């Protein structure tokens, strides 16, 4: 079978050996959790509890406000000690519910649904997913219920399960695929039912042969297929994944809906299954704790709201020389200034290592490597120049808004120009300008 | 109306408002004919002649010229003196006339001259206009001399036709060609700007 792929992209070192063969361990619930009310793409949830309230495991503590929002659930049972701003891995403080764990936290009551989950109607599935506060687990944390509600005029044909995990170091999805393949496929089946799609395609990179074989075996029971993809970054980016599998291009500014596709991360598929089959809210997730700066890299199942500190301590702590801490992958992850931030729904990994000395920035020597590797076929160096000199019209015309911030350009840049930074600046300025205009 | 002293009126053309280095006017002849000092000098003199006499005439008849037709009148006046210069050169200095080619008639469109009429002579007295024209002419001749001296010395190893470089010197032919003119002028402009900046920082 020939591995499929897209044009451009890069091959950063993988470093997956740290954790690839380590089975998922469970982190004991911490004494205190801080659960941010915004852990997703969209508006923050409205708090449903007050200081002093007693909450149970899995109890809804924040209600999703609008369509683009998701509910938040308690990950322990105990007492609410505050509802206030708290550190957030995104950078700026966000309102969060702090809960002390009373240790009563018996495992989640697996009250089996009396009804066969596959006989639910699309509307029922969406409702249960929404109720459970499921969001995309790949990192962007887009509310899953929204993704399962395609507009009427855009019939969905295919559900793609994203098993690429193209970011270096991360292995949480890989472990899930090895340890719970049925749950992922069942979740995919539910997504198929909810969107009315005809088939499921699971895309797996060819550096995860083991997972690929398991899935090839398990897929027999479902109406779908497994596709082998070339190991390449950013193979897991939605638009590039769709192109690699179906040779369809999502139009600029559009969504996968526009080409009849819904993409779900493997972890998300499992969360959908848990939510629909057992009514289990999304209050824990699997993360990879890895990197040269971590004593014992591991894959662990963590309650949402657990401080990074507890997670890192569970993995033997940081090495002396570790001086960079990242939530997410090394290509798109966000640096953390402290270990005192909580794990959120979008946390796919916690990485640490000794950062190399920052390299000197040279003038652009127009080598064209950013152009050659941009998965969106943009011209990053030109865009950066337009943004730098505030020619936003040109920047927009040259497609700055289509940038997915994957970082391929900056990874390859021999002049070490912070291209992604300029893209973000450009996008921000253009969007702010547009909001001002429409206001 | 200008409020400068007579001395300032003259010296401004040499540096502060030097037509070539500071105002970047009249660059066409500056680039085209400065491949030998004699040509540069002749061009400078011819231009000076036209500038001085046009300024005199324009400043003395400025009262009679309605502003709607002033440019047309200036051009006629300038063209008259240009033709005189051209004929004079052709009659008495045929070799120079030949090597300057069409650039003498082209003095008509030299911005320095029309510019001074418009900016100065049409607003000032005859005396002041004369001083201004003399200053500007000197500035222009100076620039032409400087440029053509550099180009002739490097391009032929001579100055006004006299050998100044030793026999070891291999002439830089590029300096006689248009690129040499651009490169020399560019470097001189950069120097002028630098000197100006330094002078400002001292003040």
């Amino acid at each position, binding site marked *: 079978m020939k591995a499929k792929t897209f044009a451009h992209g890069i091959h950063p070192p993988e470093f997956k050996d740290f954790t690839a063969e380590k089975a998922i361990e469970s982190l004991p619930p911490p004494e205190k959790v801080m659960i941010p009310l915004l852990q997703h793409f969209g508006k923050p949830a409205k708090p449903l509890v007050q200081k002093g309230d007693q909450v149970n495991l899995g109890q809804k503590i924040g209600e999703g406000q609008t369509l683009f929002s998701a509910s938040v659930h308690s990950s322990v049972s105990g007492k609410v000690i505050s509802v206030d701003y708290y550190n957030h891995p995104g950078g700026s403080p966000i309102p969060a519910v702090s809960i002390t764990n009373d240790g009563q936290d018996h495992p989640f009551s697996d009250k089996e649904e009396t009804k066969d989950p596959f006989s639910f109607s699309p509307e029922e599935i969406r409702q249960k997913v929404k109720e459970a506060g499921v969001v995309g687990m790949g990192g962007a944390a887009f509310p899953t219920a929204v993704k399962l509600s395609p507009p009427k005029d855009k019939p969905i044909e295919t559900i793609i399960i994203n098993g690429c995990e193209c970011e270096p170091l991360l292995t949480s999805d890989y472990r899930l695929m090895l340890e719970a393949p049925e749950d992922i496929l069942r979740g995919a089946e539910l997504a198929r039912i909810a969107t009315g799609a005809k088939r499921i395609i699971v895309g797996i990179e060819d550096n995860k042969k083991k997972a690929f074989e398991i899935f090839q075996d398990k897929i027999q029971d479902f109406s779908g297929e497994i596709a082998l993809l070339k190991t390449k970054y950013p193979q897991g980016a939605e638009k590039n994944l769709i192109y690699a599998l179906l040779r369809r291009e999502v139009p600029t500014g559009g969504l996968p809906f526009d080409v009849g596709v819904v993409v779900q991360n493997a972890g998300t598929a499992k969360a959908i299954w848990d939510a629909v089959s057992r009514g289990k809210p999304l209050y824990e997730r699997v993360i990879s704790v890895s990197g040269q700066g971590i004593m014992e890299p591991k894959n662990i199942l963590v309650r949402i709201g657990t401080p990074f500190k507890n997670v890192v301590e569970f993995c033997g702590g940081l090495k002396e020389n570790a001086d960079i801490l990242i939530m997410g992958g090394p290509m798109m992850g966000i640096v953390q200034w402290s270990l005192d931030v909580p794990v959120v729904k979008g946390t796919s990994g916690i990485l640490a290592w000794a950062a190399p000395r920052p390299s000197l920035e040279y003038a652009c020597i127009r080598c064209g490597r950013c152009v050659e590797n941009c998965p969106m076929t943009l011209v990053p160096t030109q865009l950066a120049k337009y943004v730098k000199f505030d020619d936003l019209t040109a920047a927009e015309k040259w497609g700055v808004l289509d940038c997915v911030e994957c970082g391929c350009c900056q990874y390859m840049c021999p002049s070490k120009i912070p291209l992604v930074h300029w893209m973000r600046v450009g996008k921000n300025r253009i969007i702010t300008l547009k909001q001002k205009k429409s206001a | 109306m200008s409020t400068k002293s007579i001395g300032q009126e003259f010296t401004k053309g040499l540096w502060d408002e030097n037509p070539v280095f500071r105002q970047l006017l009249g660059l066409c002849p500056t680039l085209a004919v400065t491949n030998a000092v004699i040509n540069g000098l002749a061009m400078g003199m011819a231009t000076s002649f036209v500038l001085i006499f046009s300024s005199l005439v324009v400043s003395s008849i400025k009262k009679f010229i*309605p502003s709607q*037709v002033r440019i047309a*009148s200036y051009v*006629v006046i300038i063209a008259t003196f240009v033709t*005189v210069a051209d*004929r004079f050169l052709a*009659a008495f200095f*045929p070799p120079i006339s030949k090597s300057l080619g069409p650039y003498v008639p082209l003095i008509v469109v030299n911005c320095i001259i029309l510019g001074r009429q418009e900016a100065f002579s049409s607003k000032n007295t005859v005396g002041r206009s004369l001083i201004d024209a003399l200053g500007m002419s000197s500035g222009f001749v100076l620039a032409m001399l400087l440029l053509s001296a550099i180009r002739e010395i490097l391009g032929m190893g001579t100055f006004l036709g006299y050998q100044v470089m030793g026999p070891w010197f291999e002439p830089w032919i590029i300096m006689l*060609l248009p690129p040499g003119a651009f490169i020399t002028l560019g470097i001189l402009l950069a120097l002028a700007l630098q000197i100006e900046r330094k002078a400002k920082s001292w003040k």
Partner: protein
Amino acid sequence: MKLSTQMVVVLTSVGLLSGSFLATVGHLTKERIALNKQRETEKAIIQVVPGIVSSQKLYEERDLSVYGGKDAEGNIVGFAIQASGIGFQDKITLMLGTNTSLKKINRLAILDQKETPGLGAKIANSEFFLLYWENRDSSGTITLHKPAVSSPEELLPTEVNTITGATISSEAVLNIVNTSLEQVRKIIKEGKLTGEAQDVN
């Protein structure tokens, strides 16, 4: 005075004054300019046809004039052919002195050229180029010797020298010479050359 009238009056008078002034200047310099030109041509003719005392224009067309050089008795002893053609950069005008049979070139002079200074412009230089044109046999086509030689003795009588690095300019001159000789032969054959052309076979 109305503005429009004033405009007309001013422009007319400025124009009239300039015109009359220029007419005077033109009149005063006209003769001298013509004289300059004539002298230049005469000088060139005497230079290329040695030993003559006067000359007479025998033929003229665009880019080609033929002058007859006369000795003290008024006999034509040689032709001076003024011809122009395209060089490397611009038009080249030259004066070619031949004997009356057009079979021998006395000398060559370059009247006007705008070739690359220091390179193609050497065609106007005796030491590098014109020296090699003296006393050439022009009964057939003259050819260029490549690469350049350093003394006329190294050339065949029907050959002329090349300028190192300026082959195109050298070729251009050669071309003008060969073409004009051909043309003049034709003109003589057709009997269009007025004046007494002697010794023409």
